[in-house]
């Protein structure tokens, strides 16, 4: 088969052998993580919404595609996530006092917490299933208001981890 500079395919591409790409392959069905702090004012308690979408913002289309797999069904991304003090750092250890405290609601506003089912403040890797809109939303609490602190939301999907900073601990 030939070699190309750019190869743009707007339909389907079926390759029975190998596809070698020496630079970038932009597959719009590989999902990406996007974390949005939707709070317009920095508060002691904030919502973070995590979107698991394709690069162009669509939902994953990884529904089972062929008959041998049974009825076509809606597939949803699962995410491991944790909060850290540095980019992709260790899960944060919760201390009993000060603004350096972050707690979570036991039930996400959107999506489902899979592990641990009983949420404690312990430093731990957490696992969530997204909603049918392929996102989940968590409520994070700092123990007291004051100067904002920067923390990092880290998420791992399809084997790749990504870290996004956010601020918490402003006006109560």
């Amino acid at each position: 088969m030939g070699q190309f500079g750019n190869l743009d395919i707007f339909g389907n591409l079926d390759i029975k052998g190998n596809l070698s790409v020496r630079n970038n392959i932009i597959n719009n069905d590989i999902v990406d993580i996007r974390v949005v702090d939707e709070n317009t004012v920095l508060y002691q308690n904030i919502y973070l919404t995590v979107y698991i979408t394709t690069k162009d913002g669509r939902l994953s289309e990884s529904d089972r595609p062929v008959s041998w797999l049974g009825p076509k069904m809606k597939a949803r991304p699962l995410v491991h996530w944790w909060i850290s003090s540095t980019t992709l750092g260790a899960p944060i250890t919760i201390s009993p006092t000060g603004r350096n405290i972050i707690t979570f609601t036991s039930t996400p506003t959107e999506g489902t917490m899979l592990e641990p089912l009983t949420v404690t403040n312990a430093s731990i890797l957490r696992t969530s299933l997204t909603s049918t809109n392929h996102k989940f939303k968590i409520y994070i609490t700092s123990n007291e208001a004051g100067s904002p602190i920067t923390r990092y939301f880290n998420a791992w999907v399809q084997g790749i981890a990504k870290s996004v900073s956010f601020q918490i601990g402003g006006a109560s």
Partner: protein
Amino acid sequence: MSKFIESEIYGNCDVNNKATINGKIYNDDILYVSFSKIDNGDTPLMDIDLRIHVRRFDNTITKSGYPMVHWWFAISGSDASTNQEPSQVDPNDIVNITYDNGYELDPTPGTSVIASGTDLHTAITDSANDIILHLLGDLADDSSFTGYINAMVQGIVYSEKFTIYFGV
């Protein structure tokens, strides 16, 4: 630059700069999960194999190694909006669960008896890319269980409803 509406390539395709695909790319090593339920034919029925199959698009197994999955039982499946969290299976319905094929990695490593579905389990498949769970029922009260088996591979969760009846 070359553009295609649709292309099937049976050999190799080498792109030295960038490949942009706005449709789907059928990568034969993208994996999917399916499920099956097989009883051993005994009467009264006392056990069932619940099988988690991890396959490529063409129904063959991956050449990239042994798939690892998360799996759990829940009241509802991934197509629902609520109650997908791992749920307790009544020990009077399913007495215990063991692995016939594959291994548990977390929270109880090995193939021995595991808690009845309460946890999110992490397991690795056998060489056939299957996990076979052996569900032992309670014959005393002709027990039954209805729920969803959920399994995640490569970041995507698949689920299927199943019902089992133990006893006559």
